């Protein structure tokens, strides 16, 4: 068999193997995606109820409670929380995030960057890989591995750390960068201001009237102080869950595409292989025929 023929055959085998891998990864991502979306759905009653309680409390108490997490201060130190995935092979999922973070730093916070007042906190390895060379940034990786054991408790610890830092005036603004899960094929790289929280607003009159005779335990102001950190933790957890679902969605799409591409490639390779084989046979026949003719001649 001529060398060219063998080469094509090896390539066909290798492409087929790669295709097997991408196909398997796609299936795994699909089942993980289902679990990830389930988690978001399970979390929803908790977070809706929590914010409902907050509205009930605010409409039930007349006083204006000062909340440490809502304090607006002049910007001196900023913290960015960058949520990415631990693993690659998920299309532009991580690189889009890194690009968005880089652009934001360059365009809006370049003064702070020069002064070394930007901190980056990473959730997920890939963000760290992409941004570890950012100049003048203080890198924090203590919560990088949340995705290894994704639970509310672990996310809450990270959220608490961020909130304590804000209250202790280590940073004056916290922004979270994460991929928002829209549907299986669409992820939206998003930045969201986590702290200070926007001012809480009392709900419309009618709604407030109906529910205003609650007993509060402990009374009014104190309960809000307890409730706000809980709501923030829940919000932080929802960023992470969103990103988790988006990651699996992105991987599923990327792997589906890769499988299709492999199929395309295989078609072409098979054509080349058959042509080469045909050519080899033709040459062989010509050789035999001319050899026989020479003997008979």
């Amino acid at each position: 068999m001529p060398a060219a023929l063998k080469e094509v055959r090896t390539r066909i085998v290798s492409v087929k193997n790669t295709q097997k891998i991408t196909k398997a990864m796609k299936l795994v991502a699909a089942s993980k995606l289902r679990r990830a979306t389930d988690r978001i759905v399970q979390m929803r009653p908790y977070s809706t109820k929590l914010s409902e309680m907050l509205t009930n409390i605010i409409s039930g108490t007349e006083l204006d409670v000062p909340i440490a997490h809502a304090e607006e201060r002049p910007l001196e130190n900023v913290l960015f929380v960058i949520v990415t995935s631990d693993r690659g092979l998920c299309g532009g999922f991580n690189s889009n995030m890194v690009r968005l973070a880089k652009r934001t730093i360059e365009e809006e916070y370049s003064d702070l960057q020069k002064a070394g007042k930007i901190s980056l906190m990473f959730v997920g390895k890939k963000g760290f890989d992409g941004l570890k060379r950012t100049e003048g940034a203080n890198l924090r990786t203590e919560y990088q591995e949340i995705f290894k054991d994704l639970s509310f408790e672990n996310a809450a610890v990270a959220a608490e750390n961020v909130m304590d830092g804000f209250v202790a005036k280590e940073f004056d603004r916290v922004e979270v960068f994460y991929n928002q899960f829209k549907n299986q094929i669409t992820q939206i790289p998003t930045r969201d201001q986590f702290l200070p929280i926007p001012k809480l607003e009392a709900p419309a009159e009618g709604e407030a009237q109906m529910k205003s005779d609650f007993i509060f335990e402990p009374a009014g102001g104190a309960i809000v102080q307890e409730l706000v950190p809980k709501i923030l933790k829940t919000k932080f957890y929802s960023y992470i869950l969103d990103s988790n679902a988006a990651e699996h969605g992105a991987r599923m799409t990327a792997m589906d595409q890769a499988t299709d591409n492999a199929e395309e490639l295989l078609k072409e390779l098979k054509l080349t292989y058959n042509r080469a084989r045909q050519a080899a046979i033709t040459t062989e026949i010509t050789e035999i025929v001319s050899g026989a003719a020479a003997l008979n001649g």
Partner: protein
Amino acid sequence: MQVELITPDQTVFSGEATGIKLPGVNGSFEVLANHAPLISALGEGTVRINAKEGATTVTITGGFAEVLNNRVVVLAESVRKEA
């Protein structure tokens, strides 16, 4: 009355109950049917739900409870079931 015990990861309990004991921040208290509307912060401790079929006891690390129109919703950060 209707009782729901919810954490961010799951719904732990949902159904009819005759009473529920809660670990309030200012001390433990019990809610029975037709209780007045109440919102309370909860500390660390045990929640005991008394239902007709028997009682369920879980340990929570803190959370909130809301009582409104014979419906009790308990939001706990994390829950550990006890035998």
